[in-house]
C-alpha cells in the first residue's frame, strides 16, 4: 500500500501549491494595503514594517469613494432584482410548457451572452443618451440585464425541471390557484436555484467594468471606474489602490459564503 500513500502525498502537495498560487497575489495586495507608499516602493517584504491603516481611512473618509460605492451597489442590486423578476416566469415557461419557437428563443438568449461587451459600447452610448438615462446607475443595470438574464433563466430552468410536473398538478387538484401554488409551494422548492441565479447576476454586475465606465459620466461614477481613473495618472498612491482592491473583494467573499453548498449544484445544470 506504500505507493498509494506516496501518490496521495504528491497529489496533496501539488494541490496545496495551486492554492498558494491562487492566494499569493491577493495576499500580496493585502499586505500592500497596510504599507505606506514609501515602504511599498522600498522593501519587498511580505509583512509590513510600519503597519498602517491610513490607506483604508483615506478611502472611507473620501465622500467620492463612498458615493461611487453606493452607485455600484445600486446598479448591482437593481440588476439582480430585475433579472430575477423577469427570469423566474420565463424559466417557468421553458420548464413547464413547450410552445412554438421555445428552443430558438432559448438559443437566441444564449447568443446574447456570447456577445462581447465591447460590441454594445457604441449602440448603448447612443441608446441611453437618447432615452436620457445616460450617466445614471439605471443605465448600467439595464445594460447588464442583457447578459445576466440568459444565465439566470438557464440556471432556474435547470432547478425547476428537477421538480416533477406532478407536483404542480397535485397542487391544482388540491385547489391551489396558480399564484398560491407558485408562492407557497414552488418558490420554496427552488430556493437554492434562486440563490445561485442571484449569485451569478451579482457576480456579473459586480465584476463588469467596460459598460459601467462607458455609460457613466461624472455624476454617477462606479467604484471600479473611480479606481482605474486614478490609476491612469501614473504613480498614484499604490497603498490606496491596494486598499480599495481589498474592499472590492469583501462583498464577493461574503456572498459566496452564503451560497457555498449550492455553488457546485448550480454549475452542474445545463441544457447542453
Amino acid at each position, binding site marked *: 500500500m506504500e505507493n498509494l500513500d506516496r501518490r496521495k502525498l504528491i497529489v*496533496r502537495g501539488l494541490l496545496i501549491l*495551486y*492554492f498558494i498560487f*491562487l*492566494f*499569493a*497575489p*491577493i495576499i*500580496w*495586495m493585502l499586505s*500592500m494595503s497596510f504599507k505606506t507608499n514609501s515602504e511599498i*516602493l522600498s522593501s*519587498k517584504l511580505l509583512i509590513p514594517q510600519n503597519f498602517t491603516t491610513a490607506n483604508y481611512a483615506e478611502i472611507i473618509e473620501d465622500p467620492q469613494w463612498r458615493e461611487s460605492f453606493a452607485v455600484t451597489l445600486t446598479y448591482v442590486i437593481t440588476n439582480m432584482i430585475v433579472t430575477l423578476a423577469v*427570469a423566474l416566469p*420565463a424559466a417557468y*415557461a*421553458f420548464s*413547464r*410548457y*413547450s*410552445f*412554438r419557437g421555445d428552443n430558438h*428563443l432559448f438559443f437566441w*438568449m444564449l447568443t*446574447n451572452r*456570447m456577445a*462581447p*461587451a*465591447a*460590441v*454594445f*459600447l*457604441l*449602440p448603448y*452610448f447612443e*441608446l441611453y443618451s437618447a432615452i436620457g438615462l445616460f450617466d445614471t446607475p439605471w443605465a448600467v443595470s*439595464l445594460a447588464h440585464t*442583457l447578459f445576466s*438574464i440568459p444565465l439566470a*433563466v438557464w440556471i432556474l430552468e435547470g432547478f425547476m425541471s428537477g421538480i416533477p*410536473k406532478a407536483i404542480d398538478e397535485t397542487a391544482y387538484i388540491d385547489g391551489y390557484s396558480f399564484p398560491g401554488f407558485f408562492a407557497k409551494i414552488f418558490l420554496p422548492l427552488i430556493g437554492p436555484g434562486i440563490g445561485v441565479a442571484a449569485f451569478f447576476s451579482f457576480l456579473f454586475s*459586480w*465584476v*463588469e467594468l*467596460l459598460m459601467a465606465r462607458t455609460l457613466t459620466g461624472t455624476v454617477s461614477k462606479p467604484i*471600479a471606474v473611480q*479606481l482605474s481613473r486614478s*490609476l491612469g495618472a501614473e504613480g498614484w498612491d*499604490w497603498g490606496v*489602490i491596494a486598499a480599495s*482592491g481589498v474592499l*472590492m473583494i469583501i462583498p*464577493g*467573499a461574503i456572498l459566496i459564503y452564503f451560497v457555498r*453548498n449550492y*455553488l*457546485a449544484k448550480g*454549475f*452542474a445544470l*445545463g441544457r447542453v
Partner: protein
Amino acid sequence: MKIRDNKAWFFVLPALIVMAVNAFIPFITVINFSIIDVFMNLPAVSVGMENFYTVINDDLFRGAFVRQVGFSLLILLIQVPLGIAIALALPKKSIWATLSLIGLGLPLLIPFNIVGIIWRVFTRADLGAVPALFSVFGYQYDVAQNAVDAYWTVVVMDVWHWTPLIVLLAYAGLSAIPDAYYQAAEIDGASRWRTFLFVTLPRLRSVLTIGILLRFMDSFRIYTEVFLLTGGGPGSTTTFLSDVLVRKAVISFDIGYSAALSLIYFFVILVVSYVFFLVLTSVGTNDDEAVPE
C-alpha cells in the same frame, strides 16, 4: 412531459421585452452604422460593405485577430486539463471540501479591473514580488518592457483568474457520477487511467461543453484585465480584439470601422461556439466506429 400551450408566451414576454430593448435596438444601430458613413451631422451616405473591407485589410485588426485566436486556444489547452486535474484531486467530503470550494470561488468574484491591479502590483518591477523572486534565480523579469514576459504574465493571470470556473464545473460533474460506474470499473480491473478515460471523461462531457464554451467566449473578448496590466504593450504583443474595438469606438470614434468590427467579432464568436457545441455533443456517440481501444 410538457404541455403544448402557446399561452406560455405571456410568461416569457417580460424577459423578452427587457432583452429586446437591450439587444435588438443596439444591434440594429450597429448594423446601421456599419453600412453608412456618418460625418459630423451631414446626411448619412450608404457605403455598403466598404467598412467591412477596411477592417479586414487593416493590419492592426489582423494582428489582433490572430493574437486573440492564439490566446484563446492556449487558454483552453491549459485551463481545461488543469481544471479537471484539480477537480479530481479535490477532497470530496469534510470541511476541506467546502473551504476549497470557497477558495476557488474567490477569484471569480473579483472585479476584472481589480484582477488587473492585483497582477500589476504583483509583477511591477518597482513594487512587485515576482521580479524579486525571479532575480533570486538570476532572471531579469520585466513585464513592462519584455514582450515574452508580458505575454506569459497575461496568460498566467487568466489561468489564475478563470481555472477555478473549470474546476467548479468539473467538480459538479464528478459528483453526479453514480458510484456503480466506479465499482463496475474496479471489478473489471481497470487501471486508474482507463477508469478516467472510459468512466469519468464520458460522463463529464456536458459539464465540460459548458466550460469550454464559456471559457472560449470570455477569453475571446478579454479587455479590462489586460488593459490594466500591460495596456496592450509592450508594442502590440498583448493588444487583443476588444482593445482594438474600444480604441476605435470610444477613443477615435471611427463609427463605421468599429460597427463593422463589432459585427465581425460577434459573428466569429457565434460560429466558433456553435461548432464547439456540435463537436462536443456528438463525439463518441456514433455507432460502429465508437472509440476503439
